[in-house]
């Protein structure tokens, strides 16, 4: 007898238990605010319920829900513009990227790092240290791999400002990871 493995997940009454935590984690990495992440997850489920006819089963329910959540996050950025401070963009504000002496190339593999709970604590702590606008740009670029063009449309910034923001975010994140993770090893 053929068993439809997807069948239970298609039942919306089970979505929250089956996908709630996963969607929440997806959102909280990106927006770094648990209340906001929970709101976005709620919006996602309600939109999915409304649009359930649009789900044709070409992908898993999880993938479908995650796609809706991605849009919710971007809508949130669009609707709640984050102020880009002049001081965040001024090139003279650039610190010398490697003013401290660099120890060596980082050896640990990304695949093993993301299996390490302690590393997640350090990574999320470092993200929390970025200015909001920089974190948004960085998150879309590095977590989701959106193009500069796509990100500029969401954030409504010039190409130059986007590059400066990303450079600043990378510089700061690199230093924070060096101090709190790689340098400790």
């Amino acid at each position, binding site marked *: 007898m053929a068993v439809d493995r997807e069948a239970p997940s298609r039942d919306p009454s089970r979505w929250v238990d089956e996908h*709630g935590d996963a969607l929440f*984690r997806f959102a909280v990495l*990106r927006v770094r605010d648990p209340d906001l992440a929970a709101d976005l997850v709620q919006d996602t489920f309600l939109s999915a319920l409304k649009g359930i006819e649009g789900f044709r089963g070409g992908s898993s329910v999880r993938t479908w829900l995650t796609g809706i959540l991605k849009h919710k996050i971007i809508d949130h950025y669009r609707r709640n513009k984050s102020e880009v401070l002049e001081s965040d963009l001024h090139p003279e504000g650039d610190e010398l*990227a490697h003013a401290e002496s660099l120890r060596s190339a980082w050896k640990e593999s990304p695949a093993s790092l993301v*299996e390490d709970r302690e590393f997640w604590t350090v990574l999320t702590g470092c993200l929390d240290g970025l200015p909001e606008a920089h974190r948004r740009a960085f998150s879309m670029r590095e*977590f989701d791999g959106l193009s500069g063009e796509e990100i500029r449309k969401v954030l409504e910034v010039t190409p130059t400002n986007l590059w400066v923001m990303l450079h600043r975010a990378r510089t700061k*994140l690199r230093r924070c990871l060096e101090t709190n993770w790689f340098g400790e090893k």
Partner: protein
Amino acid sequence: MSLNCKDAARLLSEKRDRRLSWRARISLRLHMLACKMCKVYGSQLDTVGRVCREAGLRAEHNCPGELPDERKQRIKDAMTRDPRDR
């Protein structure tokens, strides 16, 4: 044509987001031949990029945190309510 480390660091970031001009690419390459620190810096930026891409993909499993039970209940309630009242 010659770059200082600050410019090199900026270009190392920008080349992750756009195609640099040939002039910038050559200047950067020359600088990197001479400057060990910038080479290490560039490889660390690569690692930041690869770790974050991996983290973006694994977040739903590994990022710390879960949806609080009270929120789960609220969402379930909202989902069973009549759509006109949501």
